[in-house]
């Protein structure tokens, strides 16, 4: 049997009671932990041995119910899956334990996830299908069609990505990575009849996929490798493929890259902004454009650099384009 290794770790634990506390505070515990323990073991030890008033959510203890998600030094984890020794490798032996969202704390590590469920409700998180009530055969989905979900159905709705998304932190209308992944999960399902309606919801400005900042925090946070940003990209693609992309600054910003590359190989930065914003919208960028021009940061159209072997780029643009706008 392997020898049990142990190490002393200092845990700073977030405490707050919405009913009695004006501000949150932290309790510090210095504990010897073994290489076999996960964060949930530490929470249990603190509650059972030190302070019975500590509140946190736990249930399955097998990384599947998604309820014990919290943050360690800003990293979202499932308390029942995250090995303390793995976290020591990343952060050393000082760990701050926070709820997924300190803003939404009700008691200690327990948060109000209403916003999370509201976002899900927005995207119709179920299969919309006219199924016969007494079918004679099973409604089979081939393995090939099942693969189209790209494992989006592995999501356990723990909220790790949702509460790690910086765009959502700033813009509370934004639907966010978890609900986007769910929208993709159903939109990509061959049995679903509401794909286009769902795509319309995620195509709306301010709430939809266009406000994603592409920081990849969601892909990093997910404990089940759902890779929400991959699904967000897919939703962008599906919006164009379904022909419902609106003619606005966000869509033109994506399409503008193709125009530039076809002409120069490289991106014409100034033209991209003009094309995206339109001739009037572009005027609001004049203050910074002037500063950039003064400092030699604007290339004039007649000096626009071009890739060598532009004939290749042009030919590939013709032969490999798969979408029209």
């Amino acid at each position, binding site marked *: 049997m392997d020898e049990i290794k142990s190490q002393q770790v200092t845990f700073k634990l977030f405490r707050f009671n919405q009913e009695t506390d004006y501000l949150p505070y932290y309790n510090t515990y210095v504990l010897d932990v073994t290489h076999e323990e996960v964060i949930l073991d530490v929470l249990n030890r603190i509650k059972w041995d030190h302070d019975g008033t500590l509140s946190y959510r736990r249930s399955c203890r097998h990384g599947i119910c998604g309820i014990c998600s919290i943050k360690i030094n800003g990293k979202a984890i499932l308390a029942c899956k995250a090995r303390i020794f793995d976290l020591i490798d*990343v952060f050393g032996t000082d760990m701050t334990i926070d709820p997924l969202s300190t803003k939404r704390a009700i008691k200690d590590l327990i948060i109000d996830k209403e916003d999370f469920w509201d976002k899900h409700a927005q995207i119709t998180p179920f299969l919309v299908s006219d199924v016969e009530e007494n079918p004679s055969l099973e409604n089979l989905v081939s393995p090939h069609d099942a693969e189209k979900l790209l494992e989006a159905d592995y999501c356990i709705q723990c909220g790790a990505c949702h509460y790690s998304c910086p765009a959502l932190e700033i813009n509370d209308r934004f639907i966010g990575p978890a609900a986007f992944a769910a929208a993709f999960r159903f939109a990509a399902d061959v049995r679903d009849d509401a794909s286009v309606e769902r795509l319309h919801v995620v195509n709306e400005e301010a709430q939809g996929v266009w406000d994603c900042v*592409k920081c990849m925090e969601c892909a*990093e946070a997910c404990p089940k490798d759902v890779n929400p940003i991959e699904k967000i*990209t897919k939703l*962008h693609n599906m919006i164009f493929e379904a022909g419902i992309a609106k003619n606005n*600054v966000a869509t033109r*910003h994506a399409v503008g890259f193709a125009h530039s590359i076809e002409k120069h190989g490289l991106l014409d930065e100034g033209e991209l902004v003009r094309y995206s914003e339109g001739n009037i919208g572009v005027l609001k960028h004049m203050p*910074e454009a002037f500063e950039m021009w003064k400092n030699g*940061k604007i290339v004039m159209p007649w000096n626009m650099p071009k890739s060598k072997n532009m004939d290749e780029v042009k030919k*590939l643009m013709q032969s490999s384009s798969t979408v029209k706008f």
Partner: protein
Amino acid sequence: MEKLRYALYTGCTARESTPELLKSTMAVAEKLGIELVLLDEASCCGASHLQDYDDFLSLVLNARNICYAEKLGLTMVTICNTCQLNTAMTKHRLDTNPELKAKVNAKLSEVGLEYKGTSEVTHFLYAIIQDYGLENLSKKVNVPLSQFNIAPFYGCHNIRPSELQNLSNGGENPYNPTSLDDLIIACGGNNVDYDAKNKCCGFHAELQAPHTAAVLTGNALSGAMDANADWMVTPCPLCHLKLDVQHHNASKAIGREVKLPVLHMPQMVGLALGCTPAELGLQHHVTKVNFV
């Protein structure tokens, strides 16, 4: 040490709105005796936006760029985090999916090219740290940056998703990255710790979600200022454009005047190696570099 040679994928920004990045990269390479062969044939990486419009097209174009590094038999180095992400992502997808690779190669064959998967893709930051070595770099430092508190700003696309970065880039932990901090120390500077150093600058949503983008820029600048940084350093020209040019919008968005000089990673190394401000293109900055 054997002379290091790389194929340099400049990306678009270094040839347009951040000319100082290309200039300082070449200056530092020369000082360190690293040979950078410019990939003038390369096109735009799509910056994660072409990918939203036409994923297959972006794969073909990025694969074509890598083909030119393969032809030279060299590792491709990037000097933009977003170029790094899109190029490495293309490589990863083609290297792990023979069917997709065949589809892309069918298109590339029309222009006489073939993607093989023989060239690695890595950011210049990691080429310096891993191939050249920080100890070797320290030995070359003749103007140590010891009087400066320097705030590293890592930029998302060099550190996330870690699965990809482990395969073909620095492979550091995105929740506690250390490469830029180590580089600052190797240049004799004092690295400053602050929460926003591994967070998003907002660049990619600047046109379609200007408020979100400006708040994120503001958070980065104010975080560095509160940590008593004299200036910031970043390996990404897109982060640089946000932090250097957009401070007025960031200030408005967060209700606080925020402004700090921001250097590109090679500019910082160049200063420590004794390059002149002109050799590093420091005159191009919108937020003036007032300390040299």
